[in-house]
C-alpha cells in the first residue's frame, strides 16, 4: 500500500535537491557587496521604519476569511467521500447531504446578510 508513495518521495527528493542546491549554489557563486541600504526593508523613498508591532497589524477581515474557509473546507471534507460513494448511498445519501448543505447554507446566508463577506 505504502509502496505507491515511494515514487512521490523520489520526486520530492529530486525537487528538494534541486531547490536546496540552487539556493546553496547561488549563495556561493553570487557576489557579496555589503551596503546598509540593501539590508533595509523596502520603502518608497522614505526612511523605512521597523514594522509596527501591535494588534492592528492585520485587518480582522483576514481572520474572518480564514474561519469561513475552515467552515467550508469541512463541508468539502464530507462532500468528497459522499460524492465518491454516491451511487451506493442512493437517495438516503442525497437527502442527508442536501440537509447538510442546507444547514451550511443557512449559516452562509446569515454571514452574507450580516456583512461577513464584505471587504470594505
Amino acid at each position, binding site marked *: 500500500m505504502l509502496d505507491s508513495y515511494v515514487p512521490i518521495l523520489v520526486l520530492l527528493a529530486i525537487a528538494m535537491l534541486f531547490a536546496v542546491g540552487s539556493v546553496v549554489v547561488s549563495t556561493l557563486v553570487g557576489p557579496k557587496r555589503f551596503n546598509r541600504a540593501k539590508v533595509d526593508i523596502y520603502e518608497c523613498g522614505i526612511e523605512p521604519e521597523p514594522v509596527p508591532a501591535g494588534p492592528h497589524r492585520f485587518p480582522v477581515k483576514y481572520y474572518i476569511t480564514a*474561519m469561513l474557509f*475552515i*467552515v467550508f473546507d469541512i463541508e468539502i471534507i464530507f462532500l468528497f467521500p459522499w460524492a465518491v460513494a454516491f451511487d451506493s448511498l442512493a437517495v438516503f445519501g442525497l437527502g442527508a447531504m442536501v440537509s447538510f448543505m442546507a444547514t451550511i447554507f443557512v449559516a452562509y446566508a446569515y454571514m452574507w446578510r450580516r456583512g461577513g463577506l464584505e471587504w470594505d
Partner: protein
Amino acid sequence: MNPANYLILAGLLFTIGATGVLVRRNAIVVFMSIELMLNSVNLTLVTFSRIHGTLEGQIMAFFVMVVAAAEVVVGLAIILAIFRTRRSASVDDVNLLKY
C-alpha cells in the same frame, strides 16, 4: 512496523500538548497545544483502526477534524476579542477573575 509505535507517538504528542496547555502562557499557544492533543487523538484513532481492521476509527478522525475546526473558529474569535482589548494574549494577563 509495529502499530503500537504509533500509539506511543500519539501518547507523546498528547502529553506534549497537555503539558503545553498547563505550562505555556500565551493563549494562542495554549490553544495550539489543545489542537495538538486532538490531532494526537486522530493518530490514535487511525492506528487503532488499522490494528482492528475496521474503518470506524478513520471515520471518527473525520469527525474529530470537523469538531477541531469548529473549535478553532470559536476559540479564535474569543481569543481575538481579548487580544484586541488587552493587546496581549498571555493567559496571565487575564486575571480579573479570581477568588
